[in-house]
């Protein structure tokens, strides 16, 4: 009963008990409750989106990690593969993949016969169940083991993408009505082969380790080579952006005088962080490729472009973590007669290191997922069929990158590629989540409390 006089609307004496809520309190409590509900529903919507996203990606992408294979016994006929019979590698090389086609056909026909499957398909149509990659696989094997010519060897060939899709439920008899690549009779044969165990669906390591394949052979396409492309780009980014970014931040934060020049630099760095990444791409095209004549599609150029893009992120996070080191540590070091540089490198930098590392990893993760700048320097649409042979090759030979590869697959007409795009997204996300987890762990582990 003390503050009645201060209240703008005097409360009648009877209502002033602490046990009954005043209208004002009720209103405040209701507002607080409403706000909490807004917050919770916002988070719930966010979580729901996340769940939808993850389930979509996983349900559509896991198929890419499995592949249908057909196991065949192939007789490597000497008459076809090495007419002269002297096992001269040069002569064997003269037989192109066309020369291997009849052998594959014969092997397929033999297998169907052996299993006693009744079909009116011709041997060519039977062999069409196999991937176009089968002949290339056979030729590669023969060139590597010429001594096996004349013997019978068991091979595990990729099945054609329609057959693979049929096993995964993507292709059905209805959906292939207008499809020239496969007929219902061929699917019947596939059913028989599946029952006989010749055709099977297993885990496909080649999707993770292999290289991209042409439009005609989606079943053979893999992420491996573009992963290497991404890896080399990240090496370039790490090697350039970390030292440059950290050195620039230390100078700006600890040594540079605070004047209008550094203010302008600071504003510009903040602005650069918000520049659309495609702008960096066109800058890279103009400077690195057109002016400096670095090779097109090379991970080195991609790495340089992504370095430019990542630098502002690293500088901003490094400066923030340097700022977070309490000034008392600098005073302490200077107070015992350390030079400014000793104070920074002996005391401030080690304390800021976890923050710097976190920022760097997040910057790298961002660069890893970046596609737009790569469009302009020719890293999209390029098909590298072989893994690079050396580090120099890895940096300079044309290659793709993971997000560019995903974009490329998503763009192609065949639904089999579509599935691989989702699978590629899973791989990319695994990388990103791993990197971010490492960043969080580093931050938690080395975080200091003052």
């Amino acid at each position: 009963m003390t503050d009645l006089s201060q209240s703008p609307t005097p409360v009648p004496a009877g209502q002033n008990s602490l046990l009954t809520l005043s209208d004002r309190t009720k209103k405040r409590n209701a507002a607080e409750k409403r706000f909490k509900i807004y917050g919770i529903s916002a988070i719930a919507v966010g979580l729901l989106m996340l769940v939808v996203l993850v389930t979509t990606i996983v349900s559509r992408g896991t198929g890419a990690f499995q592949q249908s294979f057909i196991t065949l016994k192939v007789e490597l006929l000497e008459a076809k593969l090495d007419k002269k019979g002297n096992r001269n590698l040069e002569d064997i090389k003269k037989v192109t993949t066309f020369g291997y086609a009849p052998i594959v056909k014969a092997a397929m026909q033999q297998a169907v016969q052996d299993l006693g499957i009744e079909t009116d398909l011709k041997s060519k149509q039977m062999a069409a169940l196999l991937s176009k990659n089968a002949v290339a696989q056979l030729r590669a094997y023969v060139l590597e083991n010429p001594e096996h010519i004349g013997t019978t060897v068991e091979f595990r060939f990729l099945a054609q993408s329609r057959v693979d899709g049929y096993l995964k439920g993507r292709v059905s008899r209805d959906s292939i009505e207008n499809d020239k690549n496969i007929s219902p009779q061929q699917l019947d044969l596939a059913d028989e082969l599946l029952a006989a165990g010749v055709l099977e669906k297993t885990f496909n390591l080649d999707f993770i380790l292999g290289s991209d394949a042409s439009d005609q052979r989606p079943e053979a396409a893999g992420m491996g080579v573009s992963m290497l492309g991404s890896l080399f780009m990240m090496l370039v980014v790490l090697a350039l952006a970390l030292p440059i970014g950290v050195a620039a931040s230390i100078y700006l934060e600890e040594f540079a005088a605070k004047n209008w020049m550094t203010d302008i630099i600071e504003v510009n760095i903040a602005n650069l962080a918000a520049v659309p990444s495609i702008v960096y791409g066109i800058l890279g095209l103009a400077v690195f490729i057109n002016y400096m004549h670095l090779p097109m599609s090379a991970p080195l150029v991609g790495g340089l472009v992504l370095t430019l893009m990542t630098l502002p992120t690293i500088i901003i996070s490094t400066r923030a973590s340097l700022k977070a080191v309490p000034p008392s540590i600098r005073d302490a070091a200077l107070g015992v007669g350390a030079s400014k540089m000793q104070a920074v490198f002996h005391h401030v930098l080690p304390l800021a290191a976890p923050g710097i590392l976190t920022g760097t990893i997040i910057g790298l993760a961002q660069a890893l997922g970046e596609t737009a700048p790569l469009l302009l320097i020719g890293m999209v649409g390029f098909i590298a069929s072989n893994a690079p042979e050396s580090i120099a090759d890895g940096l300079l030979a044309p290659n793709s990158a993971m997000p560019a590869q995903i974009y490329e697959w998503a763009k192609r007409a065949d639904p089999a590629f579509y599935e691989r795009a989702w699978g590629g997204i899973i791989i990319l996300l695994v990388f990103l989540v791993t990197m971010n987890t490492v960043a969080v762990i580093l931050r938690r582990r080395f975080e200091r409390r003052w």
Partner: protein
Amino acid sequence: MNTMNVMDRTLETKTTKIAARDVNVYYGDTHAIKDVNVKIEANTVTAFIGPSGCGKSTFLRCLNRMNDTIDICRVTGDILLDGEDIYDKRVDPVQLRAKVGMVFQKPNPFPKSIFDNVSYGPRIHGLARNKAELEEIVEKSLRRAAIWEEVKDRLDAPGTGLSGGQQQRLCIARAIATEPEVLLMDEPCSALDPIATAQVEELIDELRASYSVVIVTHSMQQAARVSQKTAFFHLGNLVEFGPTGQIFTNPEDPRTESYITGRIG
């Protein structure tokens, strides 16, 4: 130390360690220190007292050029250490700070081991030729800072894990490990409890034997307890400077009297 009998304290004449002549300090447009002249003697504890914002800490930080780290800070006038102008262009503040050590208001040990905290200064100044010498310096410094007995078994433990009072004594050990000639203390006890304060004060009195100590303090009792000379700052001016006993019992300036009797502050 007989705490309040300040008049009885004898004061032998000593050589001048630091002499400040017409020192002015500006922070941008703010005139923080106005024409300060003061002589700080060797083997003496000199206390700077005065209300908050009077410039006593600023002036203290001028004595080892810690103000250099503040961009907008400008110092004019001469500050002579053993007759040499410390603001001369040829003077490297790093060398100066090795001679004029500093202990800060808040204990600020490095987040490293106790040993590394104390050995850092000697190490960067090359005071020890080998590990044994370094260990010797560390032990000597910790003993002089009256903390050896408490930490001798855990020199590898982090310095930040000690209690506040121990941390401050560790910082004092760190400061004296570089063999300074002057020790500046910026309110070294303001973050400490009375027991830790008493320990640090006792330590300050012992340090007087080897160093010239300058201490900034908010507590007039502390100034009276530990110092032989007291300087009273007010609004950037050095109002009065003299033997502690005289300042506290018979101040010449009415402002000093008002402050020590609690009328301004």
